[in-house]
Each structure stands twice: as structure tokens, then as C-alpha cells.
């Protein structure tokens, strides 16, 4: 398997680790923004092989985890409207809302279907002309272009019973919000790989220039991450702060212009609620006015009760990097992958799920 196995080579890793150990003098804290990175770091035990000078904290980069409870409630309410088929990606089904989940709604008779891509959702729409098919769009810049493309396709093919509940979010404003809050002091940022493949690494210039924090975009294999950490350590020791790419096979400074164009054509920025972080200006994406007919929020009057956060759940603090799952009294005792209390235990990229599955010593 070319381009994968090579990036898991133990000997090459040893070289990188030696170099990191030799170079790293100052005590630093690096955040990996993306949940995909968190999983790789835990899966390969990367925290334990880094020198004690380097502390790693996990960020909010899991789209399922940061979806606000009120938005989950909205998706559930939509599913309960007669004649509506709700389609979404698998992880969303189990995420607890205030009083229910999409999975429970389905067990109660609602038509909720898991799809692997928006193309499947469009297919369901054409096969069920008497129903309205709503795709619950959750995701960052990586997913939003494909959802935008599905709206354009529906428009071209005149599919009138396809709609989107857009809960999409964009990453840079969330990072700005964490840095402005100042709760966690960071000396380096492992920038998301797939998101950067779309946005380009230029999207992080404001972190390096504005906040003086070194930034390196990383891939998801262990060698990618080690190389990224090595580059961050080098910047720190040289007292530099710039944006670099440790994932050249996937990311360019400019990003994927075609995807960005489609995304911009269909969506416009709006304020969005992030679990644990509150409302962040310009961090959400809503359908532009020309595409109102595909906007589930415009088409339906979605009634929900005020959202209730699960008592004792620390997902919010965990997402901001202020606390770890080990600080949560529910972790492993009440909250497990089978009976998740908060979304970070549900999502395969969630922080709590990574701690639960790969070792709760935090990898140390």
C-alpha cells in the first residue's frame, strides 16, 4: 500500500524521535486542532515517545463533537415531521440531543438513514418523490464543498424534494476564539490536514503572524505527525513563527480552488454555535438566498424546546483543551461508547472516545 505503509515505518520514526529529543529544550504545549490527529496520536502512542518537554493537548476539531445540542434537537425535530426522510453520516445517529437522539427517533418510527455521501442522499430523494429528503450537513471545510455540490446537482437536475440542514462550520474562527480566550497557552499548532487541503495552509497565517504561534499542517500517519512536531520544535527553538507544511502530498498554500469556489457559490458565512465555545461570528455556513428552496430551516418551521446540556458532562471544556476526559467524573463510569453522555464519546474522532479506546493514561 504505497503512501501509507511508508509513513508508518518504525526506523524512520526512530530517527525523527531522536531528532526531536535532541532539539527540544524549552517546555512547550502544542495543540492538535483536528480529531483525526488526536486519534492517530493515541493509536500510535505518540505522546509517550515524545520528550517530557513537549505537552500535547487536543483541540475542538471534531465536527460531530462541536455541534451544539440545540442543533441536534433541530435535526431530531425535522426527523419527526411526517413525510421527511433525514439522511446523515453514521456518527450523528448516536449523538445525544437534549431529550433524544436521531437513533432513538428512528426506533420510534422516524425515517432516518445513514449515508456515505450526499450522492446517496440525492438518490434517496429521486427514489422517494413524495417525501422530502433532508441531509443533515455536519462537517468542516472538508465536507461542505461536497454538500454544496449536491445542492448544485439538485438544482441542475431539478430535484425539488432535496434539502440541507446546514450545520457546517469553518475552522479558522474557532482557533481564533480559543487563542483570544487565552485559557490554554499554546506554543505551537498542529493544523488540520484535510481541512487545509481545501483551505490551503495560508488560512493559518493569522495564527503565525498575528499571535506569534508556530503553525505546521500535518498529515495523519505517525511519520507525518512526528515530522510536524519536529518542525514545530525547530521553530520554537529558533524563536520563529511561520506556517509550514509537513503534508506536501495533500496540501498547498492556496488550497483547492475549485472546492472553495463551489462552497462560496452555495454557502455564505454566518454566526454558529459551537459546543463548549458558544456562538462564534462567521464560523458557520448557511445557504445563500438563491438556494433558499434547498434550505430545510427555511422550508420547515422547526419547533424545539430550549436545549438542555447533560449534567456533569465536560465535553465543552475538553473541546477547548482546558480539561482532559480524565477530569470528567462521568468518563468510563457513566459515559462509554455504548452509552455516551456527550458527543466526544460518540464520534470516532472524539477526544473521549480516543482516551477510552487507546488508553486513559493519555498516552503517557
Amino acid at each position: 500500500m504505497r503512501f501509507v505503509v511508508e509513513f508508518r515505518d518504525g526506523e524512520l520514526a526512530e530517527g525523527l524521535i531522536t531528532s526531536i529529543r535532541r532539539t527540544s529544550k524549552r517546555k512547550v504545549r502544542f495543540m492538535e486542532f483536528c480529531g483525526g490527529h488526536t486519534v492517530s496520536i493515541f493509536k500510535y502512542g505518540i505522546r509517550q515517545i515524545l520528550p517530557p518537554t513537549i505537552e500535547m493537548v487536543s483541540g475542538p476539531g471534531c465536527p460531530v463533537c462541536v455541534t451544539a445540542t440545540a442543533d441536534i434537537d433541530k435535526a431530531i425535530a425535522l426527523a419527526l415531521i411526517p413525510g421527511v426522510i433525514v439522511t446523515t453520516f453514521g456518527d450523528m445517529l448516536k449523538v445525544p440531543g437534549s431529550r433524544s437522539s436521531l437513533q432513538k427517533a428512528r426506533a420510534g418510527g422516524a425515517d432516518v438513514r445513514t449515508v456515505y455521501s450526499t450522492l446517496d442522499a440525492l438518490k434517496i430523494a429521486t427514489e422517494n418523490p413524495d417525501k422530502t429528503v433532508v441531509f443533515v450537513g455536519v462537517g468542516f471545510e472538508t465536507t461542505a464543498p461536497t454538500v454544496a455540490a449536491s445542492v448544485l446537482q439538485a438544482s441542475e437536475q431539478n430535484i425539488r424534494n432535496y434539502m440541507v440542514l446546514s450545520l457546517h462550520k469553518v475552522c479558522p474562527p474557532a482557533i481564533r476564539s480559543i487563542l483570544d480566550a487565552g485559557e490554554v497557552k499554546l506554543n505551537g499548532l498542529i493544523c488540520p490536514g484535510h481541512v487545509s487541503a481545501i483551505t490551503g495552509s495560508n488560512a493559518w497565517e493569522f495564527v503565525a503572524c498575528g499571535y506569534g504561534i508556530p503553525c505546521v499542517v500535518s498529515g495523519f500517519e505517525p511519520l507525518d505527525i512526528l515530522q510536524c512536531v519536529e518542525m514545530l520544535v525547530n521553530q520554537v527553538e529558533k524563536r520563529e513563527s511561520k506556517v509550514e507544511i509537513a503534508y506536501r502530498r495533500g496540501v498547498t498554500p492556496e488550497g483547492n480552488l475549485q472546492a472553495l469556489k463551489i462552497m462560496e457559490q452555495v454557502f455564505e458565512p454566518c454566526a454558529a454555535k459551537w459546543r463548549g465555545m458558544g456562538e462564534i461570528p462567521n464560523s458557520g455556513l448557511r445557504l445563500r438566498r438563491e438556494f433558499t428552496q434547498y434550505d430545510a430551516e427555511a422550508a420547515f418551521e422547526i419547533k424545539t424546546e430550549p436545549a438542555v446540556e447533560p449534567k456533569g458532562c465536560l465535553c465543552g471544556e475538553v473541546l477547548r483543551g482546558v480539561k482532559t476526559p480524565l477530569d470528567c467524573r462521568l468518563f468510563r463510569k457513566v459515559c462509554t461508547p455504548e452509552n455516551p453522555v456527550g458527543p466526544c464519546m460518540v464520534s470516532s474522532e472524539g477526544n473521549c472516545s480516543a482516551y477510552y479506546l487507546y488508553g486513559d493514561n493519555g498516552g503517557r
Partner: protein
Amino acid sequence: MEDKILLAHGSGGKLAHDLIAKSFVSALDNPLLAQMDDSAVFEANGQLAFTTDSYVVNPIFFPGGNIGKLAVCGTVNDLSMSGAKPLYLSLALIIEEGLFLSDLKQVVDAIRTTAEEASVKIITGDTKVVDRGSADRLFINTAGIGIIPEGVNISGSNARSGDKVILSGTIGDHGIAVLSKREGISFSTELESDCAPLASLVAEMLKVSRNIHCLRDPTRGGLATTLNELSEQSKVGIRIEEAKIPVRDEVFGACEMLGFDPLYVANEGKLVAIVAEEDAEKILKAMRRHPYGKNAVIIGEVISEHPGRVVMKTLLGSSRIVDMLTGDLLPRIC
């Protein structure tokens, strides 16, 4: 138009009688089945093992096998994992109205050849037909009886600190092969399910050593779940090495693409053996001489630390916990 199963085939009348006689009794012919009484009557002396399993795999035909082959292998393997020599199986089918008779024939053919290979006889059976929509084409249940040879004592609770953990071959082949034909995901691959009866492999292992402590086939939940079950049952820790676990390129690639971990993907023709250290090499050699064990490897050992936990040395030399499968990786793969 191609012949199909009708509701009347399950009515107990003439059509049902003909179906049973033509499709099953003649195909699976043996003296005990031919008795045609309400029960098969047989003699057996010694310690017996008894097991049952239902098969609802979707789709019913997949690369490397079909639901019939699976229904024999699964139950034969469950018997083999107790160290038993499988003797007899029961076979019960729940057929959805409208199944092509040609499809049924193909399934029964697979049942026959697999049973022959495993040296088991199907000695009793049942057929029901349900209305369209009440089942998904074909469900099968088999139960099996086997006899445990003198001196064999194999159980999931027998693992001892110092034992070696042997895996009989590559992991994840069955799960990915079935998935590759699943509607909504299908992708093309040369990969075939590893579905196979392991009775003769276990017999070869038992010939060279009686120091086999645990045997288990890592089906649903994959290798990771099986190792966790064994460590919990035996109250020991298990340490394995990622670099030693054989995974085919096709399985590796599909898992990368779909976000699965091969450790959790199902197998239907593999076994994990936990054996006394002094006999490990001998058993490994015997396994490698057998076609279903030719890629066998020692992947780790049993330790007294952290009972109930499985820990893996990663490719980078760090270590991490390997937990049980949580939730559903893939529904209806067996």
C-alpha cells in the same frame, strides 16, 4: 421465467415434500438423514460439545463463499474451538418467498461440499417459507455436535502467564470481502472471504501437542475482541505486536479508505491459539503445514500484568490498549 420458492413450498404439503426430498435429502444424503423420522437417532460415547448459530449475512453470495458455506463453517469452527471433532449438524432454513430455486441449489451445494470437507454429516433439518418482506432472502440456523478426544481440555479461561498467542493467518478478509459487495458501498477487489472449516487444522495441532490452552475463531468483533474475551475469561493480560499481525494489502487498503481498523474486522476461517510456551514452535510448524494455517505466526504472549487488558506494541515502539469492539462496525456479515 426462472423457478422461485413459493409460500406453498413451506406449507408441509406435496410441494414442501418434493423440495425437501429433491433439494436436501438427495443432496446431503447419509443414512441418518435418510431415516426421515422426527428426530435423528445416533450413538455417541464420550464428552460431547454442542453449539448453535444463526446466519443472516447480507448479501447471501459473496466473494469466496455464500451463506450455506458460512453456516457450516461457523458451527464446525465453534465445535473445533472447544477441541471437539465435529460429527453432526442440524440445518434449518427460513426462506423468503421468491428466492430463486437456482440460488437455493447453489447454497445447498456449498453446504454439501463444505460438510464433506469438514467430515460432518447433516442429519436433521427444517425448512420454512415466509412472505416477502418477512425475511431477507434466506436465513440459516445450524446446530452441531462434536466429540472431545481424551485428554483435551481447551477453554477460554485456560490462558496462563508465559503462554504464546498464535494467529493462523491474515485478518479481516471476510468482513472486507462481504462489504465489497454491499449495496451502497460496493467497490471492486480481488479479495475473497477466508470462510473455511477449521476442524482438520485443529486436528493437526492436537496431533503434535495437548498443551493447547485456548482456541477461538475471531469472527464478529475481529481479533481485538477475541483477545479481549480471552484475557478477561482467563484473568490475564495479553501483549501483542502490531508488526507481527498479517494483513493483506487489499484489506489494509479498504480499511484505510473506509476508516476501519483490521483488528476489528471479521474473519470466518482463522483461529487464535493460546498455547504453552514450550510447545509453541511445534504447534506453529504443524499449523504452517496445513493450507488454512500456512501464514500462522506468533503475535504475542500472555502476561500476568493488567489482567483483562490487551496491549499492543505499535509500529513506532510505543504501546497502547486494544479494546473490544464497541458498537456495530458492520451489520450482518455472518
